Structures are given as structure tokens and as C-alpha cells.
């Protein structure tokens, strides 16, 4: 099972480090990362494997959102199925 994690906000030092630390804490494996910085706006999309996640998926989403709040970033974690459903037939 995979989840898509997106991070959007003002660029600063250590975003990737903090987010990947957060993932490691809950045994979430990062498979793919793509990121862009456009005029100071940081946008990162991570595809993560959540098969062996160590907590409830909902709690993980909440904790990452809270982590985003402490950094002044907006972090969303959503199960991949919503993207597959919406954008492919």
C-alpha cells in the first residue's frame, strides 16, 4: 500500500530532513521524491510505502499535518487510491 505525501510552503533549511525523519519514526518507507522550488515556494511530493506502518494511518496523517504546522508548511498525506481513482480509468 502506498500513500502520497505533499509538502507545500515557504522554502527553508531542513524541510526534507524533518519530513523524512517523521516518516522513519513511523516505519514509513519513502520510495520516490520529487521537489521544486518556484520563487521561494517549496513543493515536494513523496510516494511512500505504508505497508509496515507502525501506527494507524489516520494518526500518521495527523502527526505529519502537525509537523507541517510547526514548520509553517502545509503537509497532506493521502492514500494513493484517491489519485488512482480520480485520474485514471
Amino acid at each position, binding site marked *: 500500500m502506498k500513500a*502520497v505525501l*505533499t509538502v507545500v510552503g515557504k522554502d527553508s533549511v531542513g524541510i526534507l530532513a524533518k519530513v523524512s525523519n517523521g516518516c522513519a519514526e513511523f516505519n514509513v518507507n519513502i520510495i*520516490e521524491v*520529487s521537489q521544486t522550488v518556484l520563487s521561494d515556494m517549496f*513543493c515536494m*511530493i513523496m*510516494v511512500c510505502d505504508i505497508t509496515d506502518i507502525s501506527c494507524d*494511518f*489516520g494518526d500518521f*496523517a*495527523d502527526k505529519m499535518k502537525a509537523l507541517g504546522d510547526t514548520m509553517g508548511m502545509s503537509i*497532506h*498525506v*493521502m*492514500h*494513493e*487510491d*484517491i*489519485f488512482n*481513482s*480520480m*485520474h485514471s480509468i
Partner: protein
Amino acid sequence: MYNTHDILETIKMIEEEHLDIRTVTMGISLLDCIDSDIDKACEKVYRKITTCAAELVPVCERIEKKYGIPIINKRIAVTPIAMLASACQTSKVVKFALTLEKAARAMGVNFIGGYSALVGKGFASGDYALIESIPEALSITDHVCSSVNIGSTKAGLNMDAVKMMGKIVRQAAELTADRNCIGAAKLVVFCNAPEDNPFMAGAFHGVGEPDCVINVGVSGPGVVRAALEKAGDMDLSGVAELIKRTAFKITRVGQLVAREAATALGVPFGIVDLSLAPTPAVGDSVAHILEEVGLEQCGACGTTAALAMLNDAVKKGGVMASSHVGGLSGAFIPVTEDAGMIDAARAGTLTIEKLEAMTAVCSVGLDMINIPGDTPPEVISAIIADEAAIGMINSKTTAVRVIPAIGKKVGEELEFGGLLGSGPVMKVNTASPLKFINRAGRIPAPIQSLKN
């Protein structure tokens, strides 16, 4: 593997354009709760609902987290209570309403529908008592919703029931006059009522349905409007195509949630209702879609044509996205629940007559319209008859949910709050239809009913 644009588009739809699942509605059959003793029947009803729906709210909350999409309402629809009332032979059927209210509170759902009677061709035992009790039931409960089906394409219109419902709608408003006449906002009068509708106030669990079922209603007028705004100038073929594509995406989310909820709850998946359901929030309005298409304000000449195109495109996009489509499926035009409609009604651009024309080409009918407090019952009955006739002849669902604003006049406002919104009292043509309504009887089924 994933397209960045697609991912950001989905997040934007949810965060900025109000894409949400309007409702996950669990339909529960109460046919096995019928008992000649009303107290025993109520006990069985409470037990059945609280057993079937015990996990409904927690499961929906888990799905919200998993997909990051809000599920605004969790609701329950039950077998029309008139069927249970018929076995009891008592006039105290309001006990059923109190039981439904108790069960709704225990389960933490937003609404429970099914305080209903189906009298399209005539009254069965229990129907009279139930309909008579509707105003009281709606005044002493908060979550219970009521509906009455007074006709169909197959059966024609039961004008005795139409006559009765004019009075009942008024009484429902009068008994809750101190609370913005909210009783009438929880009561809808149908022609061709669907048995699997997840939307309130008209949801009930039809007799042809399984014992327990999950139906889902999506919402997304804001997403459609934003897509049109982004697309800029294009001809109407292009507009229809864009709406179709957007409706597909919206409905796919509904299908995903419906499947997931049904599996988690261990009950069959029923249908996804393809409706564009507005909310009073800015940016979540069906009227604003029509204005984006090119009308100065909703209600202007051209509104009916634009709405017909919108309604058709939503269905075409949605039907491919879901394995089972049902319920009302179309664009909703509830006046007080739609920021654009409220503005148009205040400005006088949108009138009841125009709304009536609009209901011929979309779901559902004259919905959430505040009418003057001194509107006589026979005029309300005649509004119901007109709307039902549109449904009967066009083989579609139509409904009337008007709120007589007791003590208020045209231009004054009623404020319901929440999803029900607020809006101005609209002008009603008061030339008397009294003799027509007092004739009562039945309007025969139209020639369209003879399809065999």
C-alpha cells in the same frame, strides 16, 4: 509514476474548491421491526438501527483521514415509518419519531430520514395517522426528516394527499415559528420519489432495497466552477465536455468512498448519487456555475438552458465513473443552501416561476424556498400539484420543500444555519386555486405510464 499536476489538482479541489463527500447514508430496513404494540415496535427499531449503524460514524471518520477528503454528513435512512405504523392501529405514531431521534443521537449521525408515507395512489392504514403527526414530530425532534410521496408517472397524482400536504407544510412551520419555521425545512413532498436517495430531507429506505445498504452523495459545484473559470473562453460544446470530465473525477471519489465504507461496514454498496449539491459557503454554489457559463445572475433568461446542459453533462461524466448510479442524480437548486441563489433571490432576478421552469430540467424541485407567512394552505397545495405534474409527465423526480415564514413578509429573511443556510421570503402568486384543490380525488396516470 504519479503526475505532479494531478496530485496538486486533487489537493486544490479539496482544500480550495470545497470538494467533499456530502453524505454517506446507511439505508436500514425496519420491516422486521413491525409489531402491533407500538412500544415493542419502537424498541425493535432502536435496537435494529443502533446495531446496524454502530460503526457508521467511526468508519466514515477513518475514511476521511485515509483519503484526506471530508465527509460532511453521516446519515441514516429507514423504511417509511407509515408501514410500521399501519400495524399498530394507534394515533400516537409520534413515538416512532422520538425513537428515531434517540437512535440518531446515540449514533452521532447528522440526520435520520424515513418518517415518511408513500401515498401516490391512495392512503393505506397508518398513512393518515403518520401524515397528521408530521408537524408535531418535526417540532419535537432535531434530526428526524420527513417525506411524503404523493404521486408518480405510473399512478398519477393523489390530489387528496396534495390537499392534505398544503395544511401539513403550514402546520410544520407554525409549530416551529419560534425556530425560523425549521419544521417545514425538514419536510419534502415528492412525485416519483427514489427509494435509494441519500440526500435529506427526502431520504428513505425503499421496500425493494436490501436489509442494509450504503449510498453516497457527492458534492462539488465549486470544483466545476473553478474548472470553467480556469478554462476561459470556449464554446458550449467545450463547456459541456469540461463539466463532464470534472463530474467524472468528482464521482470517482464518491465511488471510492462508497466501496470502502460498504466493505468496512460489511454491507452492500448501493449507489452513488451524481448530484451537484451546493452549500451556503462562498465558492460552493450551483448558481455561480451558471453565472460562470455566462449569465449575469442566476434567474436571467437562459438559466433553464444553461442548467439543462449542466445537469446532462454531470450525468454523462458521472455515470461512467460509478458502477451503480441512483438516487436523485442531477444538479440541485435549493435556494437557501446556495450563496448565488440567495443573492439572485434577494435581487429579484430569481423568482419562483423561473425556479419552476428550472426544475423541469434538473433534480429535484422547488427546494428550500421561503414563502410569505400568510400563504394559504391551498396555494401551497397548488404549488405541490404544479411541481408534481412536471415530475409525472416528464417521468422524473420532483419535490417541494417550501417554508412558510410565519409572521414574515416578502423581503424579510429566515436563518436556518448550517447546511440549510438562510434566504429571503420570495413572492408567491396568490390568485386562489381553492376550488381546484378542493375538488381532490386523483389526477389519472398520464399516457407516458403505458409503456408495456
